[in-house]
């Protein structure tokens, strides 16, 4: 489920107007603000590296470039290592996804069941990678705060969410997300996501330099995505997010 940026902005403005009267913002207001910051660009190009840490201390790495056009469109092209180089994934919306397999020179429509996969075998689930709006999927309650961060508790409001609840820490300075803890319906912590090393890449947007996720069900196995560069608001064409573009490859 997705909400448009304009809808988020309108909601955000109206909720902030209310909070100015009431004092501390509510959990939902903070969540909307965090969502707005997360998506504060029309389009973006991100060079990234997925690092999967192994038990022997070594790490496997995947390089990829993500083109994103809010609210829904994404094109991911893998650049390394060799066995995935040239592979592409096109997400037109939540229901329509394609994979380009260069070895077969063909595009394959994927059922949305691939959300059940992890991202390249890492600790990132599909929803960890694709969630662009928390406020549309969760009800938030402010449960604590420090001088730097708000602590929210998020309860799912749509049945498609696999988690029982989330805990979210939001930095107060720019409403960037700092940490997410994922719990199952029994209250057991499943995963922890850390977002840090933020850099401002547009007047409205702060981009984390690192997103790390630890799966507590796998002996705290950790994967992280390092964002090497980002370019925002370059007017990416809709044609880029098409099957025709996907088959052109890197």
């Amino acid at each position: 489920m997705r909400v448009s940026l304009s809808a988020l902005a309108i909601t955000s403005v109206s909720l902030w107007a209310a909070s100015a009267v009431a004092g501390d913002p509510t959990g939902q207001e903070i969540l909307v603000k965090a969502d707005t910051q997360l998506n504060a660009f029309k389009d973006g190009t991100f060079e990234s590296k997925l690092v999967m840490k192994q038990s022997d201390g070594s790490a496997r790495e995947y390089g990829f470039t993500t083109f994103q056009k809010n609210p829904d469109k994404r094109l991911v092209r893998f650049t390394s290592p060799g066995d995935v180089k040239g592979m592409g994934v096109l997400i037109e919306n939540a229901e329509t996804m394609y994979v380009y397999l260069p070895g077969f020179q063909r595009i394959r429509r994927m059922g949305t069941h691939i959300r059940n996969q992890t991202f390249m075998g890492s600790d990132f689930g599909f929803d960890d990678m694709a969630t662009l709006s928390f406020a549309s999927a969760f009800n938030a309650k402010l449960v604590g705060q420090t001088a730097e961060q708000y602590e929210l508790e998020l309860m799912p409001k749509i049945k498609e969410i696999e988690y029982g609840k989330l805990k979210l820490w939001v930095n107060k300075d720019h409403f960037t997300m700092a940490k997410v803890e994922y719990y199952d319906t029994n209250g057991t912590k499943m995963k922890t996501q850390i977002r840090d090393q933020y850099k401002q890449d547009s007047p409205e947007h702060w981009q984390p330099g690192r997103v790390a996720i630890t799966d507590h069900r796998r002996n705290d196995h950790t994967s992280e995505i390092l964002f090497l560069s980002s370019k925002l608001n370059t007017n990416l064409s809709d044609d880029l997010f098409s099957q025709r573009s996907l088959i052109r490859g890197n």
Partner: protein
Amino acid sequence: MNLSRTVLLSLFFGLGWSGVARADVDLKFGGSISSDIRFRLGGGEVVPASTPAPYPSQYRLLKNGFSRNENIIKTQLTLRAGEKVKAVADVDFYWYGYSDVNDIDMATLREKIDPYRIDAYSAYLDVYNLLPHLDLRIGRQVVVWGTADKFNPTNNLNSLDYSDALLFGRALGNQMIRLDYNPWKDLILTAVWVPIFRPAQLPRTAPYALTQIDRPAPVQEQGARDTLNSLAQIVQPTQVNVFAMQPDPSIENSQVGFRIASRLLKQDVSLSYYHGRFGIPTPAFTVNKPDRTVDVAVMWPKMDVIGVDIAGSIAKLRGLGYWVEAAVFFPQEVRYGLYNDQTNGVRTPITFMFDNMGGSQLKMGYPEGTRATVIPSTPFAKVTAGFDMTWNKYLYTNFQYVYGFIDEFGAGVQARPGAKMGDNPRTEARLGSYFVVGADLKFFSDALLIRFFGAFKIPHIEDEGKPFTAVLFPQIAWTVWDATELSAGAFVFLGDRSTKFGDPAAGATEVFVKAKFTY
């Protein structure tokens, strides 16, 4: 401007680069190095063709022996000149890993001591937005149509490579001109022209289908088949030679395809048309020689194919992916030309007088009667329908129903050899039905893959005997490090000699170990 790469390319290619050097040329190089060792178990022996030497070369398939010992270097070079032009070369170098030496002269030839081959899978040039929304791809390429997995009845522009059972028919590159026009959203119109037909690559075991003398005659009419089988038993040919009648490189023999694809109610749909030929040859003529040898000629039948496919995802079934792909084939009729050559040089046609009761009488000489039918002109359909599901991060499953396997062509029936040498042949529908199932189990961050794949033939009511036949393909693959994979497994043919997969012409059970590094 990427100056260093441009300079390097200029040095590499020597000349003719000045026109491109003005653009921002981006060079990408990739590929893989792999090793593939296989051992076959209980197969039919295949000796090298036309090799009368008393000492056999290693170019043969033993009943139990190594069937593959290949090393492969795959290289892919991609050049981009700005956003407008891309050139791709995808070439595989194969070293067979055995010697093909029959005499002392051959022992002096490096290509016999260490045989190799080069496969150019792709070598094409892309021009994007040649006209607004129009892309051109010209050169050696593979055009894949259809939404099903591997079994694509609408996918006929490239003939398939059947030489490796593990690939289930990989498409062979061919020279083509392809235009893609994307005027609006998801609407894509594609036109392809293939000037010269390229036949399918057959497996080493394929000659079995024609050269074993107890093989039933490949004709539809029961009476004609019985008569020809009786004659073969009487004459007992000493040798069967198979010749091919390739299509001329004429404009009439070029292939064309058109496709329109779009999205309807969130589902991907397409409609296609193909005019060309089926990649696997079919027997068309037989000449019985006075010395009791037999010459058989094969040809590649023409066909027109209208295809349709649909694919999508069903949200209410946990995002189940599904696809349905169907094609109606309008084949060229192939009649069986049969002749007897006499010692005086006179060639006599052998035809039949068919009656309405299904009986037939042999007619020798002129005027000719009716030739028996190999491929009737009756249109026929091939269908693949399937679904897949990722259950969790460990398990992926795939199920397909296939009507008409990748190598099956034509309506009617086909006669198969007896279960054992000397047994009576049996008939079954030429187009079979199959369940194809697959499952991937992944562990350790996808580093360990356990894969099972199987194709099981479903007998039709009209099939005689209905013996069981299937292929099983279990394998285990371990990504020991980035882009480095070790794998082992087996490709198991089940069934007796009279069945599709038990027929020695289809191949034999193999076990394999592979290693691959991709760069």
